[in-house]
């Protein structure tokens, strides 16, 4: 197999280099951070594999008086084909499908939940990607690690978590650019697992760079993300929505101080508008 100097070093250092795939999948090779397609390359040339060889510089030092040294070498094999590696994108499309098999809908439903759940290692067993690429994909899906299992949140549940946070901010009259994460976690963690709270909180806020007098980090709403999220909340149940009515509803749904803007919906390819 032809590899890169990088991959060779990783193998030499004992890092995980693994071929992954289902019997029907094309094989890929994964390091800790990257994925490569494995292809068979052919050449019309003959490649003779020599287990031991005396290189030119070595041969000179072996020179005897008559200037000729004969060493016998055995050819291990003659090849016309070898395996080649091509850097490729990880195959993570399956991940969303797997996550959707068992969406997280709330603490109260978990006791009866017997559907399949995946740990990170379980996922590596079924997804053709490197650990780092899998982590990135999970983050993009907004999945959370709950009790060691990676779960995607049911959309309505996500909305209810969001509402809890927004209502808490309102009822405490915190400024939209001065939200203390710690207080949110402490207050709501009986209702919602702390891990989920924290993940959701970070999806819709940005650090401000300041802290409370006690030293807790302060955050502000990430306007674009919130508007996109709420836009999706409104559009999901309805197939079509009159543009004017939508814009009005949308603006009145977002927290105070935030302005909606159709460009925010374009980011996730959330909405298409037609002229009627």
């Amino acid at each position, binding site marked *: 197999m032809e590899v890169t100097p990088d991959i060779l070093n990783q193998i*030499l250092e004992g890092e995980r280099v693994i071929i992954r795939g289902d*019997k029907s999948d094309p094989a890929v090779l994964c390091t800790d951070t990257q994925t490569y397609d494995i292809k068979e390359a052919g050449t019309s040339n003959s490649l003779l594999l020599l287990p031991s060889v005396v290189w030119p510089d070595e041969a000179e030092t072996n020179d005897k008086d008559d200037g000729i040294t004969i060493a016998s070498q055995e050819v291990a094999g003659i090849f016309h084909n070898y395996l080649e590696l091509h850097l490729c994108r990880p195959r993570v499309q399956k991940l969303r499908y797997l996550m959707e098999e068992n969406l997280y809908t709330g603490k109260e439903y978990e006791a009866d939940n017997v559907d399949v759940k995946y740990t990170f290692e379980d996922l590596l067993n079924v997804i053709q990607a490197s650990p780092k690429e899998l982590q990135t994909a999970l983050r993009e899906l907004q999945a959370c690690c709950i009790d060691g299992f990676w779960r995607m949140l049911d959309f309505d549940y996500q909305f209810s978590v969001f509402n809890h946070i927004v209502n808490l901010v309102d009822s405490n009259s915190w400024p939209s650019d001065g939200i203390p994460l710690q207080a949110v976690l402490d207050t709501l963690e009986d209702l919602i697992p702390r891990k989920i709270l924290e993940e959701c909180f970070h999806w819709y806020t940005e650090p401000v760079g300041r802290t409370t007098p006690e030293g807790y980090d302060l955050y502000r709403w990430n306007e674009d993300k919130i508007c996109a999220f709420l836009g999706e909340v409104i559009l999901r149940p309805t197939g079509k929505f009159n543009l004017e009515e939508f814009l009005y509803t949308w603006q009145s749904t977002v927290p105070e101080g935030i302005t909606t803007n159709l460009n925010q919906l374009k980011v996730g390819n959330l909405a298409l508008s037609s002229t009627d």
Partner: protein
Amino acid sequence: MVQILIRMPTSEDSKSGVPDWAVVELQGDLESKSGQEMHGSFVGDLHYTKKGAILIIGHHILFGKTVDVDKPFIVLRKKNSLTEHHHEANMLRSQKSLEHTQEEEASEVSVSIENLYDKHNYSTYYEVHAIVRKKILFKTRPKPIVTNVPKKL
């Protein structure tokens, strides 16, 4: 789904690390005159000169030189951990735990069966047998060696 590990040999298998092998690359195919199996047959003579390398196969001569390969090759050997000594160790372990559980509650038995299967039981894996970093490349087409042609008078 399968996960096949590519790894270095364990210290029990190799005493001095993985050896460097070489590749001799030449144009075309090697054939035996009589069409017989080439196993164990003599191939040719490799000579090193000041300029590079010369390979004489049969009545052909090829000129080439030693170069570093663009990307290193690894020579892999397919192995199956279930047929290696690890298998024996697993069997011993499971036997011991079965004996142990006979004295205990029936609910313990299921745990011992799980011990047979290592969570990371890659039953097939590839071991790096050798690394190729250099090759002796013969780019020119083989030239037939013609014995002395008498000069025209």
